[in-house]
């Protein structure tokens, strides 16, 4: 009798509150999330698969686990973490694209293995590998070529991270112009899309890009 009363009063207060939707909310949902837990493979195995040293993997995992105790990152947490680095702008779209790129098996969460795999390519891979990874990031629908619309989305997301207070004042067509520049540079055969070969070729010719790729050597 007592338990029933408690449930009844709980539901009554929920109705009064007006914010509770019986269709989508339920107590079971809360339980589900908290029991998901993921443990990565052993340190040795990860060390074989990547080019990080043991110490580096340790540092990476400690940071990872600190922020995501359950062992996996879902998109919301990912966006939240990334937004802490860009206080002025809105980094959620770019974080979404990043999440898509890191989540290789498309299961909606990034485990530590995915995390290490992605970082391995970016930080320890060859220049070609890095360019490949960047291409993969830009290619939103993963069809092997970057269209202007995809590039525009990416560009807008990068410009969003700048926020409102910039110098010079951000024009509305700044991303579009930037995309035009990019396509002029990258699209060799002028067919409106950039394929992986065009991309790699153009990047290799551009000294700036080559130079900036070197930056990732000693991030860790």
């Amino acid at each position: 009798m007592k338990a029933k009363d408690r449930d009844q009063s709980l539901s009554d207060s929920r109705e009064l509150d007006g914010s509770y939707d019986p269709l989508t909310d339920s107590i079971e949902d809360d339980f589900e999330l908290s029991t998901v837990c993921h443990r990565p493979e052993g340190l040795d195995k990860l060390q074989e698969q990547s080019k990080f040293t043991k110490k580096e993997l340790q540092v990476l995992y400690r940071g990872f686990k600190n922020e995501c105790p359950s062992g996996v990152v879902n998109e919301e947490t990912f966006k939240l973490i990334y937004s802490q680095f860009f206080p002025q702008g809105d980094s959620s779209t770019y974080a979404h694209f990043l999440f898509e790129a890191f989540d290789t098996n498309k299961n909606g969460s990034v485990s530590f293995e995915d995390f290490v795999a992605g970082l391995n390519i970016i930080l320890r891979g060859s220049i070609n590998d890095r360019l490949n990874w960047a291409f993969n990031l830009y290619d939103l629908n993963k069809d092997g070529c970057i269209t202007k619309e995809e590039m525009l989305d990416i560009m807008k997301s990068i410009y969003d991270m700048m926020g409102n207070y910039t110098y010079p004042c951000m024009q509305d067509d700044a991303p579009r112009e930037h995309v035009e520049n990019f396509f002029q540079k990258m699209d060799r055969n002028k067919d409106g899309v950039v394929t992986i070969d065009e991309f790699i070729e153009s990047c290799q010719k551009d000294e700036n890009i080559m130079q900036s790729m070197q930056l990732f050597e000693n991030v860790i």
Partner: protein
Amino acid sequence: MAAGVAAWLPFARAAAIGWMPVANCPMPVAPRDHSKRQDELIILNVSGRRFQTWRTTLDRYPDTLLGSSEKEFFYNEEAKEYFFDRDPEAFRSVLNFYRTGKLHYPRAECIQAYDEELSFFGIIPEIIGDCCYEEYKDRKRENAERLQDDQEDKKDFKPPNMTFRETIWRAFENPHTSTMALVFYYVTGFFIAISVLTNVVETVPCGSTSQKDISCGQRYTVAFFCMDTACVMIFTVEYLLRLFAAPSRYLFMRSVMSIIDVVAIFPYYIGLVMTDNEDVSGAFVTLRVFRVFRIFKFSRHSQGLRILGYTLKSCASELGFLLFSLTMAIIIFATVMFYAEKGSSSTKFTSIPASFWYTIVTMTTLGYGDMVPKTIAGKIFGSICSLSGVLVIALPVPVIVSNFSRIYHQNQRADKRRAQKVQKARLARIRIAKKGSSNAYLQTKRNGLLNELLDLTASEEEQQHLNKTKSLLESQHHHLLHCLEKTTGHDFVDEQLFEQNCLEGALQPYRSRTPSTSSLEGMTGTCCSRRTKRSVPLPIANAPASHAHPLALTHTLPKSPGLQELSAINIQCAEKQIHSSSRSNLNMQTNEVDRRNCKQQKVTTAIISIQTANTGSPAEDGGHGLPNRGASVVTTTSSNIIKVSAL
């Protein structure tokens, strides 16, 4: 930057790979980790209890004791540990703050001791997490009140040089300050009581002459009149004195107490003025009723009465609800009873308003019995009425009672409203802290270019010194933001500067642009074109406006290979020069980045010479520079040659 995600900074920097292929400008140099130190465990010995943590954990908050170099003062060489002679229990929450990024308040801890620990370790209490913040603030407030009560006695310290008027006012407000005030206080209280008693006794019948009983008032008219006069005189004097002494007479006259005072003494004066005219004496008698208001004057003498008044004022909504529901119920039941009793003969329920009386008496369970229903239907509805009456009246009463109790306690804790302001201040502070990270970056930008320049020219020791002042984490984060700026070609600025720029841009769109630079307008707002726009007033005839060949500045420097952006740095510093003879400054907008931080003796100025194929334009000069330091930097572009050298 939130320190909890400091560990994710390498990830964020790796994610910047997405910006590289789209960037038009070269990226700035990454800060190097000079120490190249492996992360080590440090031991914190707090009164014998040893805590261990990674050094990077403590480095997350560089503006606290443990995160800064201040902890070196506590380093114990022999034991190779940091020793703090503090409470280990409180230290636990301090250390957990570094680990998790959230500061918690342990409820078992004394609030003062905790505050002292926090201030020792340089942590501001405002960052206590939401889970513990309420408790912390409550405890702090209680403590403050306790201290305040002890200090209440000191409040009676009389400031010197008070005017006569202020003295009187103070005497009225705080009767226990001086003996005279106390005497006056009791005298007025006594006279209020006497006056009320007189009014009551006046109407008591005492003795009888001729045919009817007469009241005492009519028998001893003179005596009562004298009593009344005396009371009213005292009250008038008091009122006039208060009016004289009040700091704001208008406010005083509007206050409730003064209205009660006036109402209390008015009938007497009206009675004096009016003669014993038969017609008006009836009205005059009615006025006497107002003499009972004298009893409200007691509220100055009684705290409880004041609280009751406050309660009623604050329960206005509950009282209103009570009144409203009662009225509804009365009307409903009166109507029902009227129609139920309409049939019976010689009924007292002659109309609905007449039934109101029955309903009220029944609902409040008084039951005088002067009106009773006779029909069966009437009796049924009458019983329903009395049952529901109890409910309707009983419902709002606990609310009113609890309100009274609350106000009573609140009266002892009058600064709940102050707590609201503190909450707002706290939220404002948190907002400022969030903005602080972006402000930190902007601040560093103004200093940062300076540092990069020094990388070139300064000696190793100076370099080390400067690098120590900014933690590695911070410099890496700022490098990340700098890369983003380069990618998009726009700079972060703070709000005020942004608004100024917008205004300037609106007012003077073309003043600072020479015809030559307008050819560069066609380019997108990349950093390079902007920078060259600023510093190059000379025509670059062959700069193709529509081509996507931005002026890429790559440099080679004998000392440090791979250093980019030197020209930009130099140009920026040139703008920072207050030296007005520099031509570059003429094109600069006056509200440029803050020059405060530019140390003149260490800044070099660029000499920019533009040699294009068609126009052999002369070089332009900057201001002064460092002697004995020479580095010439050659930049190449695809179509133009820009020579930048630093003197």
